[in-house]
């Protein structure tokens, strides 16, 4: 699972979605792998406005990448090739291969195996 994906998922439990603590989900025991993806500066520039920056900072911190700027890069900052390359590496190339995503509200842990997170709920949570 790519780091960017964590910015677009939340707990599958209905009641959790309206609670602030269900986003972002928290990585536990994450095993990371770097997988090369073609660098498209335009793509990064276009998708950054759709990123929840606070959420991404939380995720990055939990995965051990503490160096994200406090505010989301905008305008001129998004023309800096190095900034875009760094974000590309974090968002698209950093893969969580094994581990768990844990909801801060209900505590349910979604398993990530061989790079795929599984959001199917056990029947008592449906």
């Amino acid at each position, binding site marked *: *699972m*790519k780091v*960017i*994906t964590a910015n*677009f*998922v*939340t*707990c*599958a*439990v*209905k009641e959790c*979605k*309206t609670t602030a603590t269900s*986003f972002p989900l928290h990585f536990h025991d994450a095993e990371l792998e770097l997988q090369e*993806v*073609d660098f*498209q500066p*335009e*793509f990064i*520039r*276009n*998708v*950054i*406005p*759709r990123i929840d920056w606070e959420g991404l900072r939380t995720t990055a911190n939990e995965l051990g990448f503490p160096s994200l700027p406090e505010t989301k890069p905008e305008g001129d900052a998004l023309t800096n090739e190095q900034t875009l390359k760094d974000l590309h590496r974090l968002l*698209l190339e950093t893969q969580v291969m094994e581990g768990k995503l844990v909801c801060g509200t209900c505590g349910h842990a*979604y398993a990530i195996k*061989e*790079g*795929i*997170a*599984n*959001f*199917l*709920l056990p029947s008592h949570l*449906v």
Partner: protein
Amino acid sequence: MADEYEQNHVHEVYQQIAGHFSATRFKAWPIVEQFLQAQSPGSVGLDVGCGNGKNLTVNKDVFIVASDRSENLARIAMQHQPHSTVVADILQLPHRDAFFDFAISIAVVHHMSTPERRVEAVAEILRTVKPGSGTEPGGKFLVYAWALEQKDSRRGWDKGDPQDIMVPWVRKSKSDQGQEQTFHRYYHLYEEGELERDIEQAGGQVLESGYEKDNWWAIATPKPKPKPAS
């Protein structure tokens, strides 16, 4: 129980036939292709019931979180960059409300085995799509379902035929001296106008709809919420 029924007659079958199913599906259908190409660069969307991910090859300038109930299919779909794939259930999507710029669900809702669950599936996807405001149009959701009216197809069904059916999938294995294995998947065949009715009932507004390749399709957006009385 409807969910158990679907587990046996839909999910299990796709787990079994994932490889063969994927090898027979290469290209997005024309209206799906047009819809995805029309999304502006940097848009973020969903492909619910992505199958082998054939629709993920259409537009590399948007980001799609694809999901499928079958882990075997999700694993095949995950190769398509720059997108991402997860395993999820259409009735419990792991996504926030009112967030996504677009969504597609192609040939998926017809696997839900009761009228309530079919409406619920549409409602669950619409929940995740950005509603329009006074100044900005809402996000769009493209949905396809198999049509009852397809008398010129290989299957030959038409108006008046049963709508809830089991459709065989025959898998010939090359390694097994051409031995055949048949799996049956449950389908609900949509009659004309049914998809639009389901969308309305799910709280959506139909923007466009039509018929393509033995399927009914519709593009919908979440209905704007009524203004709170002041």
